[in-house]
Structures are given as structure tokens and as C-alpha cells.
């Protein structure tokens, strides 16, 4: 039976959206960097053009000043003499040894071996004199920098850069959708398959479990009792998977019906439900539960506890242990299993992610746990040591506590 696309694909959409956003962010960062680089080149070329234009003007000023210096030199009286000044520029003269002769520059941080340069808000130009009038070998001409070119250049960079960025971002968005389509299709195929399978599982699983419960084991031989127990375990495993898949495809988007839940009772019930399954691997439970209540949807908190216990069994060693601690503000489930590599701890909540490929399952259990945890604004902490075990600790927020 085929199931049409429904709300269940929302999880797919959110993961697709997150991938799309990541790709787009990376693409925009790269494009921005490229545009910035182009902007820098453009700015530098405009600056060079400005320097080239200013060089001609400053050279004219320098030639005028040389004439004035020559005149002063030839008529120098060796009394007080007024240094030649011009309203359009300021100047300074230095001798061959770099010693200052006279200066009316605003900025005296001069550079001898650079023909034209910026210093502060001024442009300075140096002319090397052939005849050292008044002993001057270096003549510096200074003008205030006209920043019109910079405003125009920055305006061009922002306008054209911004427009190009927008256009490239739009192109990028469409390209990303095209590139992500194969991934999207394969995830949708898997989702559809799960949905179809889920619907087909319900009736036979319910029938198996109901009939197993109804069977009179006292009249059976020990061998048959063992066989029945195995059937029970297998059916419960499939039932657990069915419940996860149902939650994922149907219940996930339903409105939560929160109520006060006795957590100790709930955990004891769920442990009892998993006892036979744990017994198949000779795993024992150690419970340390305080009485406490949570204001939460019973289906959802049951899915959380079921998945954590199910994982603790699935990834535990034979003859292992599971410790469950319930306190007023947290519940902790610790196993003595294979553990998780530290670099993979952050990935356990991703959908279709499994601790270990040797174990069965779709890798959706912890994804469901995380979605419920996030919905109620709870916190889950995972700590794990490889070959020693994993601890999952859920810290309750004020919203669900009886305070």
C-alpha cells in the first residue's frame, strides 16, 4: 500500500532545508569573498588612477615651488627671509643628508624614497632637485586629499557588489536545489518505504502479541516455553519499531496532550515490558527511582524512555547491566555496552544514524528522542566511553516539573 506524502515528510524537509542552508551559506561566503577580492582590486586600481592624476598636479606644484626657491636662493640676503608659500599646497625642503631645512607641512612623517604617497588625510609628493637651492635636495609637496574618488568607488563596490551577490545567491539557490535533488529523492524513497511498511506491520504484530499473551504456558514443555519467549521478544522488537515508525510518520505532528505522569510508575512499566528482551542477552536492570511527576504527553515520554532502554539493551554486552536513576530533575539511563566513539557522540541524534552497523534498526530512535526533548525544551547529555558503556541523562526543565 502506498502512502501519499504527508506531514511525516516534514522531518525530511527540515533536514533538506538545513543542508540547503548550509550549502547556501558556504556558497554565499565563497561568493562574498570572491566579490570582496574583486572589490579590493577595483579599489586599488581606482587608487592608482587617483595617484596618477594627482602626480601630474603635484609635479606642477613642485615645479612652481622650485622656481620660487631658485629666486629666493639667488636673492638670499642672509637676514630674515620668508619661505615661499602657495595657497594650493604646502611644502618642505630637506638637504642631501635628510636634514630638515624648512617645512610648513601638516604631516611631517615624510618618505624619501616614494614619489607619491598618502599620509594621514594628505597626499605628499617628493621631487629630487638637481640644483640644491637653499641646500634642498628633496622638495616635498603636500595637499589635502580629495576623497570624492573614494566615496564614488565605495558606492560602486557596494552597489554592484550587492547586486552581483543577490543575483549569484539566486542562481546558487536554484543550483543547490538541482544538486540536492538526488539526495532528496533517495531520502523520500526511504521515508515512503518506511511509511508503507509501517502500515503493513500493525495488524500482524498486534495479532502475534495478543495470541502470545493468551497462550497458556503452563501446559507447554520447557523447550516450547523458550520458543514462545523468543517469539514474544521478536514480536516486541518489531512492535517497538512499529511504534517508533508510527510516531515518526503519524503521531509526530499531532497536538500534544500533556498531563501529570508518575514517572516512577512509567519507568517500571517500560522496564517490565523490556524484561524479556533484556533477558535474552542476560542483561539485568538496576533501578534507583524517586517518586516524581512530569507534565508531559504520555505517548511522547514513553517513546523517549522506550528508545533509551531499547538502545541500552541493543548495544549492551551479554550479561551486561542497565542502571536507571530517576531524581526530581533528571532521569539517567546507563549501560555497560560497547560505547560510542567520542567523535561520533554528536551524531547519534541524526536520523538514520546508528552506533554500530552490526546491530539492526533504522537509526530513528534517538532522532525521535531528540525531537521530543527539543519540543519540551529539555536537555539531553550523552557521555560515553568506548567498550565501557554509555550514559544518557535527560534534565527536566521547569515547564514539565511540578514546581
Amino acid at each position, binding site marked *: 500500500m502506498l502512502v501519499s506524502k504527508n506531514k511525516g515528510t516534514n522531518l525530511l524537509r527540515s533536514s533538506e532545508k538545513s543542508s540547503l542552508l548550509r550549502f547556501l551559506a558556504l556558497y554565499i561566503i565563497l561568493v562574498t569573498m570572491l566579490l570582496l577580492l574583486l572589490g579590493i582590486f577595483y579599489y586599488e586600481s581606482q587608487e592608482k588612477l587617483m595617484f596618477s592624476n594627482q602626480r601630474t598636479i603635484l609635479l606642477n606644484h613642485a615645479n612652481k615651488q622650485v622656481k620660487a626657491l631658485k629666486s629666493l636662493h639667488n636673492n*638670499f640676503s642672509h637676514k630674515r627671509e620668508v619661505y615661499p608659500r602657495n595657497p594650493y599646497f604646502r611644502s618642505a625642503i630637506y638637504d642631501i643628508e635628510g636634514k630638515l631645512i624648512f617645512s610648513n607641512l601638516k604631516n611631517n612623517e615624510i618618505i624619501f624614497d616614494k614619489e607619491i604617497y598618502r599620509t594621514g588625510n594628505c597626499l605628499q609628493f617628493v621631487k629630487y632637485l638637481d640644483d640644491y637651492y637653499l641646500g634642498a635636495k628633496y622638495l616635498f609637496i603636500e595637499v589635502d586629499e580629495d576623497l570624492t574618488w573614494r566615496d564614488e568607488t565605495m558606492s560602486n563596490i557596494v552597489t554592484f557588489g550587492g547586486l552581483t551577490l543577490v543575483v549569484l545567491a539566486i542562481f546558487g539557490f536554484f543550483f543547490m536545489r538541482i544538486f540536492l535533488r538526488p539526495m532528496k529523492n533517495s531520502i523520500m524513497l526511504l521515508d515512503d518505504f518506511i511509511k508503507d511498511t509501517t502500515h503493513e506491520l500493525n495488524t500482524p504484530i498486534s495479532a502475534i502479541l495478543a495470541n502470545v499473551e493468551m497462550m497458556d504456558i503452563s501446559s507447554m514443555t520447557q523447550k516450547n516455553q523458550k520458543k514462545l519467549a523468543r517469539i514474544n521478544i521478536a514480536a516486541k522488537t518489531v512492535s517497538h519499531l512499529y511504534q517508533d515508525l508510527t510516531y515518526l510518520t503519524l503521531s509526530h505532528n499531532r497536538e500534544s496532550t500533556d498531563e501529570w505522569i508518575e514517572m516512577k510508575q512509567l519507568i517500571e512499566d517500560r522496564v517490565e515490558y523490556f524484561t524479556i528482551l533484556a533477558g535474552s542477552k542476560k542483561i539485568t536492570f538496576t533501578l534507583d527511582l524517586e517518586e516524581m511527576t512530569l507534565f508531559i504527553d504520555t505517548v511522547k515520554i514513553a517513546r523517549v524512555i522506550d528508545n533509551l532502554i531499547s538502545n541500552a539493551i541493543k548495544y549492551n554486552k551479554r550479561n551486561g547491566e542497565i542502571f536507571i536513576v530517576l531524581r526530581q530533575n533528571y532521569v539517567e539511563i546507563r549501560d555497560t555496552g560497547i560505547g560510542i566513539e567520542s567523535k561520533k557522540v554528536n551524531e547519534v541524534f541524526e536520523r538514520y544514524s546508528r552506533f554500530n552497523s552490526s546491530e539492526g534498526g533504522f537509526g530513528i530512535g534517538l532522532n525521535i528522542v531528540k525531537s521530543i526533548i527539543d519540543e519540551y525544551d529539555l536537555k539531553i547529555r550523552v557521555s560515553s566511553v568506548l567498550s565501557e558503556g554509555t550514559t544518557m541523562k535527560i534534565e527536566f526543565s521547569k515547564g514539565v516539573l511540578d514546581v
Partner: protein
Amino acid sequence: MFKKAVTLFLWLTIFLMASPKQNAYERNCIPCHRYQPASLEKLFMEYLKTFSGELSLKESLKIFLKNPTEKDSLMNDKFIENFSVKDATDLNDTELDKAIDIYWDLYDVRSKLE
């Protein structure tokens, strides 16, 4: 005999007239250049235009005064043709340096520009 007496009188006069307060520049440079068409002031500006810095000017001037040649002279050909190149100085290095330092300080343009 009379000539010798006049010469001796002149030397004595010059010797007595030379005040002990006169510096090396005043004693050794001014007396001759006072009668030259190229004043010390103009010569300084010519040296300044050619050598620019204090150290290079003083060094070049010292070399020239110790060994004056047509090639090193800053005067034009016509001047040299009329007045020839000066004789080498007989001042020792210390005296010469002192005279040049005073000459520089006297005509340095830096302190006069405003």
C-alpha cells in the same frame, strides 16, 4: 733699507692690529675675501647649491682649501682667468675646521627662513 723698514712697520702694524679676540674665520678668510669680487656670502650660496648638506659642504670646502684646483673650483672660467685659483691654505686641520664651522654657522639658511 727704507723698503725693509716700511715692510717691517706694516707687518708689525698688522700683527698689533690683529685683535686676539678675532676668530679663525675672521683672521684667515675675511682679510683676503674683503677685496674679492666674489663675496663669502655669494660663495657660500654657491657651495650650498652644489653640495646641499652641512657635512658634504664642509668636507668639500676643506678639500678645496687644502688643495685648490681649477677643476674643483666653483668659480666660472672668466673669474679664474682674471684672478686665478687661490693658493693652498697654510692653516692646520684644526684651525681650518674651526674657520669652516664659523663660516657655516654665519651663513646657514635654516635659521633665517620663516
